[in-house]
């Protein structure tokens, strides 16, 4: 293979190309679907997981109350209907369903699950922290009360916080490795930690249209090449691609599809440190960075962006495109001058010690050098990044991938609100704080969209201490037999309804 094939490079634009859809009647119901991902699971108990990625391994086993589809729209699941009334939400449950251990699925069990999810020490505690009360209205109805607004709950109940597990196994520590109290389409039939998870379909699933294979296998391999090779060699059916694997996958004759995600690369600044408390400085940084170059380094899999989420998401301001921050070193210099920093300044940025992040950091470093800002790069592993920036607050800045939370309010609070985890400098803006409260109380998505448009405009005006670089798109690759794979914008990897051609 020659070096020239990938030199289309910076011309490539992020695009959307759907993966092959399910064609009715062509599937093999006894087939096995194999997915290969980069990191493994941490627990099979929805309250005991320790990473967001782990949820992926739980979706086949546990159904949640609400389902968020690939584009981010809520759909019914274990709750066939719900209504929101300001600060409370009422859910109507599906009838005649049992947990895998035979315990009936009813309102009492839902309340028990929600109470367990929001108890101290649960992974989901934070997501449900606004919930004040859960009541059983009747056998099929549950009501949830919140302190600030029930709107964000819809999305939250589509995550691990809405997953339902048989109450009879709540206290069984073995669930972490051998779950038996699931409520979803599959049960766990084999597990090799760090390398392989095997699921077998349950009989008489309540939604037979969403179950089209007999087995699913999730493999784990941290290496990009390896994952691609597995798909090429047939050891796996589907995997996600990193930029560098895109061309090889195409060359190998595999199906490649792509969709925008809610994840973005961003730099968070500690406003207590360095010169970041000055708005001009933050603005200058935004102008100094050449987002197009960054996009090129990612091979076009990260679209330049100027706000927290891509414009396609409901919580965004469609006017705030990357063009709001064109690459303009002169303007950056002027701003720095205005801030009294004619000679620039120096700071240290921690980045995740993965190759791509470091490459991006190096480009940024070169950009900033041009406007007289010296940025030192310290690569650290992902756990330490949070520790240094958010807990011990020793880092000046950090660059990482921000993955979507179930609801925009969570991320907003983390970055823009005083006391937020990713806001070690306790930066705040009264307008944003106010709009955030408003957004949480919004009854409908439309209503909330309006609020968030205002919020992000305010964020732009105040120049939040969080420099969004670009929004990622996710490419998947698969062999020609796979049907019905959807790429979820929120980066949850769900394969509900996937099928294999006969």
């Amino acid at each position: 293979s020659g070096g020239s094939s990938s030199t289309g490079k910076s011309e490539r634009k992020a695009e959307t190309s759907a993966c092959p859809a399910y064609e009715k009647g062509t599937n093999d119901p006894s087939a096995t679907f194999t997915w290969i991902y980069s990191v493994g699971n941490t627990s099979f108990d929805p309250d005991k997981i320790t990473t967001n990625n782990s949820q992926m391994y739980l979706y086949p086993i546990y159904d949640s109350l609400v389902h968020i589809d690939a584009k981010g729209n809520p759909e019914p699941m274990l709750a066939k209907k719900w209504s929101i009334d300001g600060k409370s939400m009422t859910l109507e449950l599906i009838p005649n369903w049992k947990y895998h251990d035979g315990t009936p699925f009813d309102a009492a069990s839902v309340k028990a699950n929600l109470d367990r999810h929001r108890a101290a020490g649960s992974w989901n505690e934070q997501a449900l922290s606004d919930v004040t009360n859960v009541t059983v209205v009747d056998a099929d109805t549950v009501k949830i009360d919140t302190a600030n607004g029930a709107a964000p709950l819809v999305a939250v109940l589509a995550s691990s916080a809405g997953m339902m597990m048989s109450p009879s196994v709540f206290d069984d520590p073995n669930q972490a490795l051998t779950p038996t109290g699931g409520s979803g389409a599959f049960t766990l039939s084999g597990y090799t930690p760090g390398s392989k998870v095997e699921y077998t379909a349950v009989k008489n699933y309540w939604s037979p249209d969403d179950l089209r294979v007999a087995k699913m296998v999730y493999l784990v391999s941290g290496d990009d090449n390896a994952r691609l090779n597995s798909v090429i060699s047939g050891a796996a059916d589907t995997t996600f691609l990193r930029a560098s694997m895109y061309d090889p996958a195409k060359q190998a004759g595999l199906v490649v599809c792509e969709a925008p995600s809610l994840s973005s690369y961003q730099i968070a600044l500690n406003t207590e440190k360095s010169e970041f408390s000055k708005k001009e400085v933050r603005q200058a940084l935004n102008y100094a960075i050449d987002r197009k170059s960054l996009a090129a380094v990612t091979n076009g899999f990260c679209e330049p962006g100027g706000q927290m989420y891509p414009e396609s998401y409901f919580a965004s301001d469609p006017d705030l495109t990357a063009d709001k921050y064109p690459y303009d070193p002169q303007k950056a210099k002027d701003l720095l001058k205005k801030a009294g920093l004619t000679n620039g300044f120096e700071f240290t940025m921690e980045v995740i010690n993965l190759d791509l992040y470091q490459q991006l950091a190096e480009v940024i470093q070169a950009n900033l050098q041009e406007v007289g800002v010296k940025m030192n790069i310290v690569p650290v592993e992902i756990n330490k990044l949070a520790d240094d920036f958010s807990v011990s607050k020793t880092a000046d800045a950090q660059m990482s991938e921000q993955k979507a939370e179930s609801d925009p309010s969570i991320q907003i609070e983390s970055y823009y609100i005083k006391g937020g985890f990713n806001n070690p400098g306790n930066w705040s803006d009264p307008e944003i704080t106010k709009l955030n409260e408003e957004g949480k109380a919004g009854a409908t998505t439309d209503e909330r969209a309006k609020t968030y448009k205002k919020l992000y405009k305010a964020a732009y005006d105040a120049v939040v201490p969080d420099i969004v670089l670009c929004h990622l798109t996710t490419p998947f690759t698969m062999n020609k037999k796979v049907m019905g794979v959807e790429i979820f914008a929120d980066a949850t990897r769900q394969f509900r309804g996937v099928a294999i051609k006969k």
Partner: protein
Amino acid sequence: MLRLFGTRLAMTIPLLLVVSFLIYSLIVLVPGDPAVALAGQNPTPDQIEAVREKLGFNDPFLLQYWHWLTDAFHADLGKSLFTGEDVWSSILSRLPVTLSLTFLALLLAAILGVALGLVAGLRPGSWIDRLATVGASVGVALPYFWVGMILVLLFAINNPILPATSYVGLTDNPFEWFKHLIIPALSLAIAPMAVIARQTRASVATVMTEDYIRTADAKGLTRKRVIAKHALKNAAVPVVTVFGIEANRLIGGTVVIEQLFVLPGLGQLAYQSVFARDFPMVQGVLLFTAALILLINLIVDVSYGYFNPRIRKA
């Protein structure tokens, strides 16, 4: 021999204890707190503290060590902070990969190295000797990870005849097992092979000039017998020594190679858990590795007794 084994074993155990203490303190005294990662994506300080308390990080250091050590005696090395897996069983589940890899690599290195060294050492100064010597120098200098990359390039990318990554169990499919391991094993084997060849050459060449070889010749023994009986056994001691050293180094190399070839072995486990600050896992893996290496040293030591009867008494 048994007695020698006993003596050496008795010397190994205190060593292992000291090593265990070193491992434990090294990892626990490391800055950086796994509790932060464990407390979730956007945790509060209270949550972090709660996690810390739960994991016993707030106990006095020596007490923590004592608990860990006594548990270790019952083959209980704790559980992974992140996956909840039992450390001991994760080690066991990953052991076959690393053992397969090291075993295959060492086997390749030993067989090819000794054969090459023997051929060269029996004809010092000949063209084959010079070729082997230069080859060995180059072999020692080649970075094993680079060799791995180049082999991948040659045999997995340019001519895709071998898989570049992943592992298949020996019992699942021996042929696939071999196919998946041959590139990583070969990369790991090159340097030790060269070192062993060099050492074998040197000691065979030296031994062949020893007086007792002349004695054996003077007895009228056949050339084959002189080499096979009198030369080899004496030449073996330094070869076994470098074999031990190389085995140790090779186990270190698995960390990089497993990372490169995505083999779910101990090296990968060690590397990943070091960076996740998964203390129990790191401690367990390091302790296990140390024990493994001590075992290799022990075997090497005891084998001296076979090759060199002088040592048997000591």
